[in-house]
């Protein structure tokens, strides 16, 4: 019965609203007081029933909830034969609750979109070898599953047979499909865009990468900062206190009307809901833009950051060396020939510099490489197409008696000063090509760092294991404030401690794998993770798909969220003080206006929080 009535709350709200309208029409248009009073009485009675049930349920578990205050007030007004007040207050309270529910769902929509991407069913191979559709909960590690075109990969697994392209946007944020074939890893929640594959389940349910992301976001949106826990404790005593206050007022003034008005005005509505609303909408916005924020404490700390420390390789730079400078000491057809020789030799090596060169040269003619001799710390010497070809550094050229003239020496010095590693190529003792290879700065990083500065970050520091020259170069190119090279991971964390001892609020941005001590130590650990588990677990903020450009958005967002929370607290506290003050010091305040202002303020804080869903960094 109770549940039936609570289930019909929306209908009850509608009916009591209609009754109110009928009552007022009959009063003002037809001057009919009987229908007026009758309508109000019925509206009051049916309206108060669901509220009273909720109040009763709350009292049974020893909670003095808002429902309790409102029920007493409405019954009080009813007994005083003030049917207008009792009917309007119940209607406003019910209607307000309805609007709250609707708007709250909006603030939660971003996170809901994320959780709804979770796979629900899977095609599992049964004992008879046939595939049958089962709920994803029924899949165990080791099961063999079939994934068809257009469907979601149900669990984390390894491809057994078949091939296809998978859109991994839900994990990495990158929507360009990735090709997968036998032995490739696939992730739950990603979508097979073409092809058919069979996979074996490695991790299921909450243990999958996607499951962990969802759990993290869900926990984050409900995590509480110190301030929120204070508000919670406060509101636990606040509602009973309002009850006692109104009782005292009644004892002193013997004015029942005033006492029950205080019950309504003292409702803590907006206060309790204001901060969680900002939190959920803000974290939801982050999730949409590939920024995972681990809760409200992180938001507070991050919004006050004044120093950001970066790891270099893989964070500021791509982490993937490329040919940046090139000079040929030959001309005509000979150029192609030299480059083909070079590509043929480097194609057999898996040295990072060799890979960079092969990638740079692309498709060339290939020659058989004979008598390959790897010179340690120098390079490679081999016979290609009947010529003696040497590929390596300057000292290898000296060993090979290659003549290097003034112009070449100047080029070498210039290339080195740019932070390049050098690869020289000689054919039959003559220098033909010089290449400078370096790890390139991520595109757009410079602008992103400028944005961070504009958002109020004073110190941008780079710490790296590379030599000081390279680090200085990156720092001056990007406009960083400090640069330190030759640093081991433990030296990096020691340096962060030093900054913190100076009173700085430090965020550390790293790739989340080898920098975990620094990520853990900094007030805010930010991982540039392509959705790796380590990154998700050790850090406070995860930038999906290792996308550096999401960092300024993240910082801008946390600043707006924390401002939004403060606004909501001010609105909520302000409204309660305003109402309580006006009931004592003004003539016009009554229960209905009080309820209207209250429900209004709740909607205002929710709408204010909702603005965060649309937040975008402007500059």
């Amino acid at each position, binding site marked *: 019965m109770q549940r039936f009535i*609570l289930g019909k709350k929306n209908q009850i709200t509608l009916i009591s609203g209609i009754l109110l309208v009928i009552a007022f029409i009959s009063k003002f248009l037809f001057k009919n007081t009987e229908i007026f009073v009758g309508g109000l009485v019925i509206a009051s009675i049916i309206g108060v029933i669901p509220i009273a049930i909720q109040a009763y349920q709350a009292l049974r*578990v020893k909670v003095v909830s808002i429902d309790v205050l409102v029920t007493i007030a409405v019954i009080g007004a009813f007994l005083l034969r003030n049917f207008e007040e009792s009917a309007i207050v119940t209607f406003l309270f019910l209607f307000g609750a309805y609007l709250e529910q609707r708007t709250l769902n909006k603030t939660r929509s971003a996170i809901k979109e994320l959780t709804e991407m979770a796979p629900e069913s899977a095609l599992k191979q049964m004992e008879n070898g046939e595939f049958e559709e089962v709920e994803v909960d029924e899949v165990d590690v080791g099961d063999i599953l079939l994934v068809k075109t257009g469907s979601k990969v149900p669990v984390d697994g390894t491809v057994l047979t078949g091939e296809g392209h998978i859109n991994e946007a839900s994990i990495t944020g990158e929507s360009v499909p990735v090709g997968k074939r036998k032995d490739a890893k696939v992730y739950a929640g990603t979508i097979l865009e073409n092809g058919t594959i069979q996979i074996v389940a490695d991790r299921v349910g909450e243990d999958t990468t996607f499951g962990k992301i969802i759990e993290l976001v869900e926990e984050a949106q409900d995590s509480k900062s110190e301030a929120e826990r204070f508000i919670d404790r406060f509101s636990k005593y606040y509602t009973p206190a309002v009850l006692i206050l109104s009782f005292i007022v009644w004892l002193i003034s013997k004015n029942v009307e005033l006492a029950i008005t205080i019950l309504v005005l003292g409702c803590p509505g907006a206060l309790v809901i204001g901060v969680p609303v900002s939190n959920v909408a803000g974290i939801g916005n982050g999730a949409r833009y590939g920024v995972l924020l681990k809760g409200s404490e992180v938001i507070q700390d991050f919004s006050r950051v004044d120093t950001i420390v970066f790891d270099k390789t893989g964070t500021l730079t791509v982490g993937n060396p490329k040919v940046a400078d090139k000079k040929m000491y030959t001309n005509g057809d000979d150029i192609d020939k030299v480059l083909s020789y070079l590509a043929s030799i480097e194609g057999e090596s898996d040295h990072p510099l060799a890979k960079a060169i092969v990638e740079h040269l692309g498709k060339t003619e290939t020659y058989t490489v004979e008598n390959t001799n790897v010179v340690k710390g120098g390079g490679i010497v081999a016979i290609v197409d009947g010529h003696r070809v040497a590929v390596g550094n300057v000292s290898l050229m000296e060993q090979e008696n290659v003549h290097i003239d003034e112009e070449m020496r100047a080029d070498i010095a210039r290339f080195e000063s740019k932070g390049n590693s050098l690869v020289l190529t000689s054919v039959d003792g003559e220098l033909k090509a010089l290449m400078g290879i370096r790890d390139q700065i991520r595109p757009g990083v410079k602008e992103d760092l400028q944005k961070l500065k504009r958002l109020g970050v004073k110190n941008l520091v780079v710490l790296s294991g590379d030599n000081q020259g390279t680090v200085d170069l990156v720092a001056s190119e990007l406009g960083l404030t400090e640069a330190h090279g030759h640093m081991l991971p433990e030296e990096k964390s020691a340096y962060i401690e030093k900054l913190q001892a100076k009173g700085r609020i430090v965020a550390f941005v790293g790739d989340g794998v080898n920098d975990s001590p620094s990520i853990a130590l900094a007030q805010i650990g930010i991982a540039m993770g392509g959705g790796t588990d380590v990154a998700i677990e050790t850090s406070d903020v995860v930038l999906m798909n290792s996308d550096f450009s999401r960092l300024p958005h993240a910082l801008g967002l946390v600043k707006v969220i924390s401002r939004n929370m403060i606004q909501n607290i001010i609105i909520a506290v302000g409204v309660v003080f305003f109402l309580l003050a006006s009931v004592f010091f003004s003539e016009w305040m009554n229960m209905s206006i009080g309820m209207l202002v209250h429900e209004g303020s709740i909607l205002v804080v929710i709408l204010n929080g909702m603005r965060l869903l649309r937040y975008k960094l402007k500059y």
Partner: protein
Amino acid sequence: MQKATIQLETLACPSCMQKIENGVKALDGIDTESLKVLFNSSKVKVNFDEEKLSINDIENAITKLGYEVKKSQVKAI
């Protein structure tokens, strides 16, 4: 000990949290330290002693408070 994750209908009022918290806490066999009522995701997470009560007892207690239980999951810990 077992860990229960209970998905409820959408919670809208913060006093719901207090009600559910007190209601579940009052049951015998609940690890009160572990009890978490998540407002935004409308979930209850709690560890309980399966010898003293079952997941159904917890679900009933919540339903009696007027909140619909949509789905629940139990995992041994």
